[in-house]
């Protein structure tokens, strides 16, 4: 096990921000903390990285505690906001941060190459676009070759190309170096890449499972049929749960049964849509709340 967290709790002025969180994270995993704004995700990450002290609880990274200096060598952090120096160029920024680590790692050029930063290398950080900044931020977090990368809402506000590029690089890194990634997100599609998802709400883990299991338990596939003959269709829906919305019938059902059913009702319907259950369904079903 790479990172073990037990009973992690943060109280501020008697208010519980993070409530008794337990985590087991293994090398090479991609872990997602999913939850709405203000759920306590960032506070949890900040405690895991050692930026804020926990009120109670244990964080253990192969025997190291967050306030050990060696702990810093093993983790990389991408903050929600950009934390690099606006007035320095990309290269100066990366170089200055690299110098602050004792252990020397891959050359700067390796990261510049990996994150496609050649063209913007000598531009001041403040003149970069949001996506460019984010790429530099992640390069900075990896510059000392950490074992775990913490990403606090890494792709909020980025366009889809940048998001894909970032994920391609991160996935490559996971394959090549067994990099462990812990990310917080309120983008459900981002959590779908994860090996394991912790759903956090009001500072508590309300569900912890693999994406597949979560889907099985909380997000069934949905068949949505459109019909002018609602009663005609309902005759075939014996022992099957459904919901009616005007001329639409929403039926949670797996693929095989959907085909069988569709065959039976094909003359009664004017159209249908079949979609995979997604993280939105999971979140809504677990919390009873909607994610924005």
């Amino acid at each position, binding site marked *: 096990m790479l990172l073990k967290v037990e009973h992690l709790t943060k109280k*501020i002025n008697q208010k519980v921000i993070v409530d008794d969180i337990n985590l087991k994270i293994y090398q090479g995993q991609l872990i997602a903390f999913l939850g709405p704004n203000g759920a306590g995700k960032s506070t949890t990450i*900040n405690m895991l990285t050692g930026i804020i002290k926990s009120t109670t609880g244990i964080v253990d990274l192969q025997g190291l505690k967050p306030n050990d*200096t060696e702990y810093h060598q093993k983790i990389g952090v991408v903050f929600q906001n950009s934390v*690099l120096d606006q007035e320095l160029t990309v290269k100066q920024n990366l170089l200055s*941060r690299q110098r602050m680590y004792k252990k020397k790692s891959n050359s700067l050029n390796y990261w510049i190459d990996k994150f496609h930063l050649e063209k913007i290398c000598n531009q001041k950080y403040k003149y970069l676009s949001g996506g460019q900044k984010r790429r530099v931020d992640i390069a900075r977090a990896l510059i000392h070759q950490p074992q775990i990368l913490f990403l606090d809402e890494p792709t909020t506000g980025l366009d889809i190309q940048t998001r894909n590029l970032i994920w391609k690089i991160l996935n490559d890194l996971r394959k090549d170096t067994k990099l462990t990634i812990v990310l917080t997100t309120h983008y459900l599609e981002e959590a779908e890449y994860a090996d394991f998802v912790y759903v956090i709400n009001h500072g508590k883990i309300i569900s912890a499972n693999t994406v597949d299991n979560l889907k099985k338990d909380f997000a069934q596939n949905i068949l949505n049929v459109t019909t002018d003959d609602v009663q005609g269709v309902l005759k075939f829906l014996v022992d099957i749960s459904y919901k009616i919305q005007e001329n639409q019938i929403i039926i949670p059902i797996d693929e095989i049964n959907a085909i069988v059913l569709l065959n039976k009702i094909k003359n009664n319907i004017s159209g249908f849509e079949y979609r995979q259950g997604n993280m939105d369904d999971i979140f809504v079903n677990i919390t009873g709340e909607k994610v924005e």
Partner: protein
Amino acid sequence: MNGLLLRNLRLFFSSKTRVFFSLLGALISFVLYLIFLRKMMIQTWNSFNGTVKLLDLWLMGGTLAVTAIITTGSALSMMVEDRENSRLADLILTDQSYTKIHLAYLFSAWLIGLIMQIAMYIVMQSYFMLADGLELDGTIILPVFLIMVFSSLIWSIFNMVLLSFVKNVNTVGHINTILGTASGFFAGVYIPIGNLPNFAKDLMKITPVPYNAALFRKVMVNDQLTKVFNGVPQKMVANFKQKMGLIISGNSTNDMKILLLSLIILSVLGIILYRSNKNMVVSKI
């Protein structure tokens, strides 16, 4: 720590506006002097030859003290910027300890203060050379340099103490504005200390500012003072020194002692405060 130091220096000098505005308080005292303060002062001491050069040197001394105060303050505003936008948290996550990060801020402020004093000295000396024919006195360069080193250190520590718990850039802006204005008065650059009412004098004397200015002035005007007051009764010279703030607490040795004491008190305070402010300035909640 070299990486941090280099970063801080680079950040400061990469922004021209930052460099310019850090010097603004000092430039104002210089310009005010040129526009009208000089004329008023010359009228007071006009019965002597060479008063102009004497006052030029006197002004340079006070302005250098002001420069040390405000440029170190403005250098340390970077520290607060780092706190405000979690850059400090990012720095702490490297292998550098909080102590080293703190010392890097201090050293960079010290160096910046020194460099800016040298720059200000060159500007003023060049101007007065051209305007008033003030020659460069080679013998004072080393002592003045040493005072610059000392002044920059004491004011770096002072500003560090002042900004111990500040984590908002706006607040630093206000503090530096007040500091910039006040330092000119406290150094006795706008109005010589001798012309002030007693209460104001006493108020000035409980800060290290006038002693610092006195140290600069004493060394800088020394030669010119002997020239101007050649053959003039000792009492009158002493009067000049008192009025113009060349001596603050009776004699120069005392002035020096007070400055050293201030340095010690500020250092102790700095150490105590830095140990207690970590959680507050890093934490984002």
